[in-house]
């Protein structure tokens, strides 16, 4: 074995390298692997009480590898939930970014009374449990006829997302030196055009990051969706969870739904990452930061 020739330093690096690989597998790949396996396997793969997991599993059911996908797709109206989840998540992204971006900009650029306390209150709001938040909103939403509506769920997801997007965008705008705007003004650029030509392009990576968070928050939300939503406004997360609640646990259908839920997440991550290059903002100032 060549291992004999490794110096202690090389050994350490090798250990760290494989440790990292195991860490990535454990945190990211293992959950993905588990749901993918269950979604493609026979119902008996999943351990019943007292039983053991069958590995390797019996692949497919009724001679069809994608049997569970077929079942949720046809029997459980999965396309409807998928479309609804997308509408809810994109709606949440659009609404929360359009509301929090101007607010974050104002927090960073303008000095007004109670600015810090106001900013802090958003973060305290972030710590409130979903249950308290959802239940307290119910009566108000009921009065306004927002229960079991797409709009209602988007609104509650947006309220939940705003402290987070505000926090991210606050950091984004803080990282843009005010002299960049002033420089634009000295060249005859109006405030509005400066926003469009300077601030917008520079904050794009941060806005993308905030959008991902808002998207995932809505995409993954179960508690609030159940509380203010209804059969007409449930998303994929509620559908997946429903398979796991009650006496007849349909883990294989929940897994198939989970795999479908993974697809847009990976897609979004892949594409948005291109805008999040770390060197995007450097080079404009006397000293790089």
């Amino acid at each position, binding site marked *: 074995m060549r291992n004999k020739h490794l110096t202690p330093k090389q050994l350490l690096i090798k250990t760290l390298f494989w440790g990292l690989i195991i860490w990535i597998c454990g945190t990211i790949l293992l959950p993905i692997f588990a749901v993918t396996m269950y979604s493609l396997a026979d119902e008996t793969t999943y351990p019943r009480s007292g039983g053991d997991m069958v590995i390797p599993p019996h692949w497919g059911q009724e001679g069809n590898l994608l049997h569970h996908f077929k079942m949720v797709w046809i029997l459980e109206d999965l396309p409807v939930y998928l479309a609804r989840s997308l509408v809810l998540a994109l709606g949440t992204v659009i609404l929360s970014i359009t509301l929090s971006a101007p607010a974050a900009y104002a927090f960073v650029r303008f000095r007004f009374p109670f600015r810090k306390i106001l900013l802090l209150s958003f973060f305290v709001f972030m710590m409130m449990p979903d249950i308290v938040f959802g239940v307290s909103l119910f009566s108000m939403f009921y009065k306004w006829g927002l229960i079991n509506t797409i709009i209602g769920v988007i609104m509650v997801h947006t309220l939940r997302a705003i402290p987070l997007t505000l926090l991210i965008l606050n950091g984004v705008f803080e990282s843009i030196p005010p002299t960049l705007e002033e*420089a634009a003004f*000295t060249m*005859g650029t109006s405030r509005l055009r400066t926003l469009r030509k300077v601030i917008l392009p520079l904050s794009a990576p941060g806005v993308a990051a905030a959008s991902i968070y808002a998207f995932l928050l809505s995409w993954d939300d179960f508690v609030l969706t159940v509380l203010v939503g209804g059969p007409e406004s449930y998303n994929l997360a509620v559908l997946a969870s429903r398979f796991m609640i009650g006496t007849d646990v349909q883990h294989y259908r929940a897994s198939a739904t989970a795999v479908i839920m993974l697809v847009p997440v990976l897609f979004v991550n892949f594409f948005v990452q291109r805008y999040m290059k770390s060197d995007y903002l450097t080079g*404009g100032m006397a000293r790089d930061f």
Partner: protein
Amino acid sequence: MAAVTLKNLSKMYAKVAANDNINMKIEEGEFITLVGPSGCGKTTTLRMIAGLLSPSSGSIFFDDEDVTHTPTQNRGIGMVFQDYALFPHLNVWDNIGFGLKIQKYPKDQVKQRVRQGVEMVNLIGLEGRALSELSGGQRQRVALARALVMEPRVFLLDEPLSNLDAKLRLHMRTELKRIHKRIGVTTIYVTHDQVEAMTLSNRVIIMLDGKIQQKGTPKEVYEKPINRFVGGFMGSPPMNFLENCEIIRENDHLFLVVKGIRFSVPRHFYRAIERLNLSTVTTGIRPEDLSDRNDAVTSQYKSHMLDDTIEMTIDVIEPIGANKLLDLYHKDLRLSAIVKADSSVLPDQHINIKVNLERIHLFDPKTEESLAYFDKL
């Protein structure tokens, strides 16, 4: 191009005046420097001229037009910021052309003017570069070109060279002077570096604590500082100050005595000292006005009544190229003097120092005003 006039301009921050009643007139095409230590209000003044800060009171005129309340984007200024403030999402060419494009200049004109700008600051060949691929000096040039292609009425620079290393700073200083000579735009330059102020400008305005201390050509403010602050601020190595110099009268002649050393008071100060009835003064002597007695050309003023020699001991010698900087002491009195590099001096040596009496400065110890301006007060 425009002349700039500031009338009674003040800026208050929570009852503290960052700028207190600033009055100045900058002629068309002039290169003027606002200089002072940090916190003196020079940048505040510049930002008010740019319209990035609004004054608490007073007004700003470009020629005869009152621009006090005109927003920055309509003032027709060009500005270079201390941190350059280039747009990191644009390359060199697009940074320089940013303002022209925003102002909807025809495409061929934008192209032509950006090209001129690139040539003016010697960035040919780097037009397509991203800013992160440029050195600090090159970024500085982009910032200069970006402001100048707008053909501003007034060109404002806020400590533009402070982020460059010493050698590059020297080079850019020359470059700035060359550009100004070529395009002759009214230029207001802010710096804390008195060397930049002296070398670049037609006129220098020295500020302290929000107030203008002195305005004048570099020669004027150097040779006739209006008060102790200006004397100490302008010039490097700085002016020596001898505190509490006692005034002694002997046969109608006045002498200064401090810590056992003694020298004559030049005649042109007599009237001020008598009128103000001063018993002590603060003396300011520039290091180059102290010389080795042995090197000195025999003074035409030399007479038995004129006492211009003081005996000191050399502590440290610092060779600075063509000259040597001597750190001298006598009791607890310390002075620095500049002598020729070929002067044969040694540490710990006693030396007779000749004071160039015609060039010493006397300040009222209480008001710190120069006695040379007594007649004008």
